[in-house]
């Protein structure tokens, strides 16, 4: 494994967000995407090395799928440029992106359930002569190409062990088989780069291993793979390189081993302390609760005399430079107000 990795040229790459790669297949610069006031993606620079399996990970809501949609033309960023094989993809619609050799799959599979498996596969091939109106009327103009496509489709079905389902409706496949079909269909366009959105999600454990094997075999066939995944064991098992996103930004990059030790990554998954110490407020409220418990049986809001409520918490952290929005802390000032003492009701 170690020499396979050095053969891939990882050793020269620095483990830091936005690091340069010797031969990037895909790179993005200054990509931002806002939804209303929320910045879903804010990636200043990222490169994906050719011939590698790169995992894109991050906690829920990190913007991984949004970033995927932007790179593949399914969504448009507010700012930014990105290129595939040195060609700009700005404004290129998804079907052209896929013809250029960069194809994606979806987290929730997009198989056409009322078509058979083989028909779904044939649809994945691009540049079909029969797609044009007039030639479509003359079978001899496209039948040979269709045979070739079918042959290729059958080979892929065999490889993905779906050949026994060839003539079944795609709708009758299990979740895991649909994932396989999704991946096999993506390969029909003979891509250079394949982007997999959660390929293992919803797949039963028995199929996971074979799916993993398929992903690895894509790399062996010379393709580059970028995939979004939540299962860390999968990430550890198959990826050469890991890019970590959190809150829309790329916060870390490195080999799986580097990433597991990265404090920023651990913070992103487990939640950070945000610098603000909650402790005084928590302690005050906890003390109030403990007093209640000591006093006896269960008490609810209605029974509670108003003076026993802890004082209102300031809405914003007072000592930080960050003030998320204008309205200042209202409500009662917290304790320590210098007013003249203990004659409150």
């Amino acid at each position, binding site marked *: 494994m170690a020499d396979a990795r050095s053969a891939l040229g990882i050793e020269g790459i620095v483990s830091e967000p936005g690091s340069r790669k010797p031969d990037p297949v895909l790179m993005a610069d200054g990509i931002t995407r806002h939804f209303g006031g929320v910045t879903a993606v804010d990636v200043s620079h990222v490169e994906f090395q050719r011939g590698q399996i790169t995992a894109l990970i991050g*906690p*829920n*809501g990190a913007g991984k799928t949004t970033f995927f949609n932007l790179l593949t033309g399914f969504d448009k960023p507010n700012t930014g440029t990105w290129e595939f094989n040195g060609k700009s993809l700005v404004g290129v619609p998804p079907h052209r992106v896929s013809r250029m050799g960069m194809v994606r799959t979806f987290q929730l599979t997009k198989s056409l359930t009322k078509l058979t498996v083989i028909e779904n596969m044939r649809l994945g091939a691009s540049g079909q002569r029969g797609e044009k109106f007039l030639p479509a009327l003359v079978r001899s103009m496209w039948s040979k190409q269709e045979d070739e496509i079918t042959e290729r489709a059958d080979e892929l079905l065999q490889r993905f062990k779906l050949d026994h389902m060839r003539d079944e409706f795609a709708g009758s496949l299990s979740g895991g088989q649909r994932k396989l079909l999704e991946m096999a269909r993506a390969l029909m366009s003979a891509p250079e780069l394949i982007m997999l959105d959660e390929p293992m999600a919803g797949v039963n454990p028995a199929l996971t291993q074979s799916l993993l094997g398929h992903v690895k075999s894509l790399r062996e066939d010379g393709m580059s793979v970028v995939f979004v995944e*939540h*299962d*860390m*064991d999968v*990430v*550890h*098992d198959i990826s050469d390189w*890991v890019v970590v996103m959190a809150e829309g930004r790329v916060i870390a990059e490195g080999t*799986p*081993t580097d*990433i*597991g*030790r990265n404090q920023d*990554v*651990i913070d992103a*998954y*487990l*939640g*950070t*302390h*945000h610098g*603000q110490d*909650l*402790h005084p*407020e*928590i302690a005050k*409220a*906890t003390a*109030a*609760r403990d007093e*209640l*418990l000591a006093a006896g*049986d*269960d*008490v*609810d*809001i*209605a029974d*509670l005399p*108003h003076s*026993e*409520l*802890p004082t*209102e*918490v300031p*809405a*914003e*952290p007072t000592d*930080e430079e*960050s003030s*998320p*929005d204008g309205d200042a802390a*209202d*409500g*009662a000032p917290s304790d320590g107000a210098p007013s003249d003492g203990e004659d409150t009701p």
Partner: protein
Amino acid sequence: MRDDLLLEARGIVAGYVPEVDILGGCDIDLHPAELVGIIGPNGAGKSTLLKSLFGLIPVRSGTVELRIPGTDGEPEQVVDIAQRKAHELVKLGVGFVPQTENVFATLTVKENMEMGAFLAPSKVEERFQNVVELFPRLGERASQQAGSLSGGERQMVAMGRALMMDPRVLLLDEPSDGLSPAFQDDVFVNCRRINSVGVSIIMVEQNARRCLQVADRAYVLDQGTNAYTGTGQELLHDPKVIELYLGTLARGLID
């Protein structure tokens, strides 16, 4: 059921699709006036567990017992709530705050509160005052449309609405979800403030560290079962918890 408990869930099996169990037998204890956290990686079953406690999804096997304290004349009783519907649980003193879309956006804050007291219309004013004591902000915004509030305030509305029925137990599904860090902190403090008046809380959270900082005790779920449990402080410093989140990626940390 143990004497010191308010709620005791044993061996909860539940799921959405027939024959696929998301929870493979979870246990949860809740003491009176306790704040309990439930954390775990994606897909661990945290929200599923909370929904099954509240009768939103059927419990396939297992028991959930709730102690109903005696009121004048009536003796204390223990009820198995595993097969009860959500509205019955509200009557029994259990409140629930969903993870997202948890306010009526086109209604005002006050109207949202009235919806919360649907089962006790005569008590709306009195209870609204109680909620405003806890969240003065809701009083200031009483006539404003809930949809026009900030995310943090909306979360306050959702919690306030659940408190309108005077619950003994409050179930919170990822209250910090989708909020900016400063607002998240407010939510955690607010949970403690609600708890400080004697309401017992079970809180599911994705921000594991904050949750552990705030909670008295916590359960760490993994793949639908209890993985670890302990006090918030114990778990906060337990490397096994990190490993659960980062899987084999974090192997280096443990050795």
